[in-house]
């Protein structure tokens, strides 16, 4: 395996629409883990993810991804990104969407069916995206990011609006990918998802409040559940 850290962020400062969203953030994501990025909405999760993928204009700081500077051309093949709102073509079918992105990535056609199976959309494969439910569209968006078998997957709230069974299955899929060496950075504002992560990063107001495994955070705060641990950590600021 490569370096111990898939993502290293140092002194990242980002301003969006005049507001200082990230005032100088430093953190790391370990290779081969499912790392949860947690925090209330407006805490800077999406901005941080955009900076890691290299689509965010940054004011200062360093973001190193898989050994290269974020946004470098070689990384476009190695990093998969799923935005909060599904970014797919509403007037194409599920399969047509995936085939297009597969051709852009230059991966074989079989990957399309594999990705559709992973997100459990086989019955809907021929359906036009516009006619899908919100959760189904979100899964198409996720499937497109799986196509290229990226080394780092950045997922912005991928399980919003999904039923519990599917949520459990997707988290199982995330862990399978991690076992194969993929690093996953998954944002969420739902605390019950935190315990499914190997490591956690808690963001509040653009600052890192805490980092560690769920066990460590519980031990440090003496709390019985993660929700309580986060409250203790956030109030201790």
């Amino acid at each position, binding site marked *: 395996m490569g370096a111990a850290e898939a993502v290293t962020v140092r002194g990242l400062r980002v*301003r*969006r*629409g005049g507001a200082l969203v990230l005032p100088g953030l430093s953190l790391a994501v370990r290779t081969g883990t499912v790392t949860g990025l947690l925090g209330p909405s407006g805490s800077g999760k999406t901005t941080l993810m955009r900076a890691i*993928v*290299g*689509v*965010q*204009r940054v004011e200062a700081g360093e973001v190193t991804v898989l050994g290269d500077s974020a*946004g470098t*051309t070689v990384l*476009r*093949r190695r*990093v998969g*990104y799923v*935005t909060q*709102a*599904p*970014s*797919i*073509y*509403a*007037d*194409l079918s599920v399969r*047509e969407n995936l085939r*297009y*992105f597969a*051709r*852009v*990535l*230059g991966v074989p056609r079989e990957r399309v069916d594999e990705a559709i199976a992973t997100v459990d959309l086989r019955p809907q494969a021929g359906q*036009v995206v516009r006619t899908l439910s919100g959760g189904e569209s979100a899964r198409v968006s996720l499937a*497109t990011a799986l196509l290229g078998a990226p080394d780092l997957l950045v997922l912005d709230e991928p399980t919003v609006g999904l039923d519990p069974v599917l949520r459990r299955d997707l988290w199982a899929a995330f862990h399978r990918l991690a076992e194969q060496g993929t690093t996953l950075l998954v944002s969420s504002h739902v605390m019950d998802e935190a315990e499914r992560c190997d490591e956690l990063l808690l963001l509040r107001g653009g600052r890192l409040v805490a980092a560690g495994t769920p066990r460590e955070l519980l031990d440090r705060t003496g709390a019985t559940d993660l929700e309580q641990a986060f409250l203790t950590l956030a109030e201790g600021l």
Partner: protein
Amino acid sequence: MNARVTLATAERVLRQLRRDPRTLALVLVVPPVLLTLFRYVFDGQPQTFDRVGGPLVGLFPFISMFLVTSIAMLRERTSGTLERLMSLPLGKLDLLLGYALAFAVVAGAQALVTSTVAFWLLGLDTAGPVWLVVALAVGNALLGMGLGLFLSAFASTEFQAVQFMPAVVIPQLLLGGLLVPRERMARPLELASDAMPLTYAYDALARATQIGELDGRIWLDVGVLAGSVVLALALGAATLRRRTS
């Protein structure tokens, strides 16, 4: 540049259009219907129809593709698909050429349908070859596409994007020589028309349909037109940003 990505993009854009048969029908049917209208409005002055009709065949694709492209690109920008594409191994040129290829196909079909109606059914006379009119129509479509792509960056809603059409197209149609010969306009207007790409598009079409003589001047027009297409596409490419705030 990557031929695989360019072709995949062109195919994807055509698939999207095929899913929207109403738009496709409007693109193909409206120009011949409008030309037919022109023909009967000028029933008493066939020479006017002969003068204006030929160039119009080549100018319709400019307007259609300007509209289709500005809306299509606006959708790419607002749906997040552009941001996704920009985070993938896809060159900006691949995306632009993919769009250009797809719209050139549609513009070619549009020009063929319109020419067929104009030259055979409506009895429009053209001095030059029909293929030249069709080729110029495709060139104009690419110009409309480039400008639509560029201006879509300044529209945040579809309402705004649609309003760019009259703002950009009508002054060029008014000054380009279609209505009044340029040398008869006030000097400042004539000078302004010198700087408008549609002036050269109209001039080339007028020469192809009325004079039929493929002299040096028409190739100058074609050269200016080609340069404008490249410039418009370059301006459009500059609005595709990998990193946004």
